[in-house]
């Protein structure tokens, strides 16, 4: 068969936007391979999620009403059984934290080649995918041998499918073996509380790995104070414990939408861009003119932050 099976994602009662991106990408792939697009909806309020994911382009929706929140053992079993039932050519899953928790197991179990974090694909008889390597410095084109494959797609690379669809929704009676479930979700925790909510800030000065040492952070605190801006950071600064988690901008931190965002010493990893590309005006200060942050920056200074930042602070003191 030349069908495509994709898997919707939800969390704490909400269908996640990546599900609608998977519909767009899945439709593209199904058109190229000449098959139908099937969407699996697993666990939780499956009927509500099925309705939400029922967008134009979807040919059939299969619901597996078992469990509440995501559990990789239930997802793996359900996807494997749906795969056996539908015999699709391609399995398309999200490259999200939960996607990473079941896609490799499913591909291994089904003996499918797996390409992860895919940002583009083409189909000419066989499937070729594009991935970023070396921290985004290189794009690698990879051809996948064989008739069948599993891929995980990077979120926000495809548009969300928005038009209402009329796919038939069918309950799939998966035989879930509870004895094979070796992990239990006991709860969720919001981690990003604290002294300041950067997602509300209009003016943000954000610092990254380029600051090199914790002692150097004083310099950017001084700048933020002089400008009356809120200080935020990219992931490595929080990983190092130099700033609390509530200051982190990015996929695993906060999404910010200020009027002005000044990124200092931030190279612009995709996870960071996901958190700040919605700012009205983006300014980047970085010594590497090829840093990906310049792909989204409106204004830039290619230079040494240790020279530029004190000069800027002085102008406002």
């Amino acid at each position, binding site marked *: 068969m030349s069908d495509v099976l994709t898997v919707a994602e939800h969390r704490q009662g909400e269908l996640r936007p990546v599900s609608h991106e998977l519909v767009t990408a899945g439709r593209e792939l199904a058109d190229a391979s000449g098959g139908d697009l099937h969407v699996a909806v697993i666990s939780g309020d499956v009927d509500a999620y099925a309705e939400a994911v029922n967008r134009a382009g979807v040919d059939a929706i299969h619901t597996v009403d078992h469990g509440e929140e995501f559990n990789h053992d239930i997802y793996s079993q359900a996807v494997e059984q749906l795969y056996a039932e539908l015999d699709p050519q391609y399995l398309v899953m999200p490259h999200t*934290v939960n996607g990473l928790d079941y896609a490799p*197991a499913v591909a291994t179990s089904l003996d499918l080649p797996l390409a992860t974090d895919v940002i583009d694909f083409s189909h000419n008889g066989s499937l070729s995918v594009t991935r970023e390597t070396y921290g985004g410095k290189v794009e690698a084109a990879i051809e*996948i041998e064989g008739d069948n494959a599993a891929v995980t797609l990077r979120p926000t690379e495809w548009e969300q499918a928005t038009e209402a669809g009329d796919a038939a929704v069918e309950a799939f009676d998966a035989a879930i073996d509870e004895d094979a479930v070796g992990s239990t979700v006991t709860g969720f925790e919001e981690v990003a509380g604290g002294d300041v909510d950067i997602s509300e800030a209009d003016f943000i000065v954000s610092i990254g790995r380029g600051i090199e040492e914790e002692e150097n952070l004083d310099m950017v605190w001084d700048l933020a104070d002089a400008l009356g801006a809120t200080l935020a950071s990219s992931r490595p600064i929080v990983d190092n414990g130099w700033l609390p988690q509530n200051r982190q901008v990015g996929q695993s931190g906060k999404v910010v939408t200020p009027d002005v965002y000044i990124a200092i010493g931030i190279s612009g990893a995709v996870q960071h861009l996901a958190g700040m590309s919605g700012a009205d005006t983006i300014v980047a200060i970085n010594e590497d003119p090829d840093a990906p942050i310049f792909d989204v920056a409106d204004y830039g200074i290619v230079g040494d932050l240790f020279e530029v930042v004190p000069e800027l602070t002085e102008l406002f003191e």
Partner: protein
Amino acid sequence: MRVLVTVKEDEVVDDEFEIDGLDIGEQYVSYELNEWDDYAVEEAVQLSEADEDDEVEVVTATIGPERSEETIRQALAKGADRAVRVWDDDLAEVDVLDPTMKAQLLAGVVEEVEPDLVLTGVQGGDDAFGATGVALAETVDYQWAAVVNDLDLDADAGVASVHRELEGGVEELTDVDLPAVLSIQTGINEPRYASLRGIRQAQSKPLDVHTPDELGVDVAELEGKLTLTSIAEPESESDTTLFEGDAGEQAERLSDLLEDEGVVEG
């Protein structure tokens, strides 16, 4: 209790580099202990140090040529007790060493070492598949959890209580039965620098080199199904207005911009 930490050497490419066919020129490449694995090593060593009976053995393993011994010695210098390196020159011919192949090679190590807990980094900084740990768990029939940023181990009960770092500042709290593979996220701890004493000791710690064959893995049967067809630098979509001049002039221009934007008072 035995903990296996898988590490890899991360191929780091200079900011300026040139592509030659399917390769990046050697002169632009350096090798480091993969950042995510550094946190996994630290987590394992902390587990060992926290055990009052001193009964936790930390074994570290890597897939790589002789060059990668430098990387795995770093894990020994930081406190791992012994190391295993897996290699066969035929593997150098493999185009893309994908997660499925790595999982099969590491499965041989798991069967040899018989760990209660396996820690991997979430992903490699270079190939960034993010899939080897979970593929390994499935291959050796262990339980697993991906993207772990907090670990509380109850060895007697045989349960690892973990936090999984989801998107958007939310963590999932999960109990995982042992034996298990956990993929470790950066930020879970503060990786130590190796002490001089540690570096000296690492030179005399056991480092066993195995061929896949010795671990019961047939390299000829490891079918790579991913073929690299081209590599390229991403096309820049940049239409950034650059502020030229020396640092003082650049700061002046930025200051004018901030006034125009109305976020500071002129």
